[in-house]
């Protein structure tokens, strides 16, 4: 169990707890990143009310090469947060699964599921990135 922290910035970077700590940290980081993107996304859709020019002006942000790379991060964030969140829900329903060995086994399943979806999808997105360069 990881206790709430009040140990200052250095402790945020140190590795505490077992196999779940990195997942916990990634869940937070991806969550915050997704919230930030959601805010940006609502703003760009809101620009629709100012007509095509205003809207399409901002879309360049997404079709440019840096935007295409960010798209891969977005995919990573959504998929990781989704798969990890689903595991948390499953573990909440089956509390026995918090026992260390079962927990670690579930994490392996989770990572395999994540990679099976992420790798091919990211490969396609990387192709779009290369196209956006030319």
């Amino acid at each position, binding site marked *: *169990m990881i206790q709430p922290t009040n140990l200052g910035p250095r402790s945020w970077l140190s590795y505490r707890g077992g196999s779940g700590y990195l997942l916990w940290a990634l869940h937070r980081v991806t969550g915050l990143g997704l919230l930030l993107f959601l805010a940006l996304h609502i703003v760009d859709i809101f620009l*629709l009310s100012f007509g095509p020019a205003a809207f399409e002006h901002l879309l360049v942000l997404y079709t440019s090469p840096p935007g295409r790379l960010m798209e891969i991060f*977005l995919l990573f964030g959504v998929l990781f947060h989704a798969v990890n969140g689903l595991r948390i829900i499953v573990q909440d329903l089956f509390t026995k699964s918090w026992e260390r060995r079962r927990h670690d086994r579930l994490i392996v399943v989770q990572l395999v599921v994540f990679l099976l979806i992420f790798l091919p999808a990211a490969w396609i997105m990387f192709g*779009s990135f290369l196209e956006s360069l030319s």
Partner: protein
Amino acid sequence: MSRREGGGHRRPEGSGFEASAWFFMRVSGVVLLGLAVFHLFWMHFVIGVENIDFNAVAGRWEGRWGPLWRLYDLALLVFALAHGVNGFRYVLEDYVQRPGRRLALKSIAYILSFLLISAGAYIIFTFDSGGV
């Protein structure tokens, strides 16, 4: 609050606000698993970011299935923002110890999300391409 390895919290005791928030995070999480993942798959792999412009949005929101798409996007907006803001609240509870600062940051987060949800709902309900 009782935190767990790998993310998530133990279900808070009782039936108060924190217990409801805990339950909401699970329910909205499952809803978003469908809504957000399908939205990303549709927009990025079926349509493609390079093909999205004003007309593409008009075709979606004003086409035959327009009302359904608007409803879909409204649900996505509400669930994603509520889920995200509550998650942000958890982060503030964990890292911001001083009560005054915590209240201030929470208030800013709530005001910002109210503005964002209003802006998003406004455009979903009022979008009119003018017949392009």
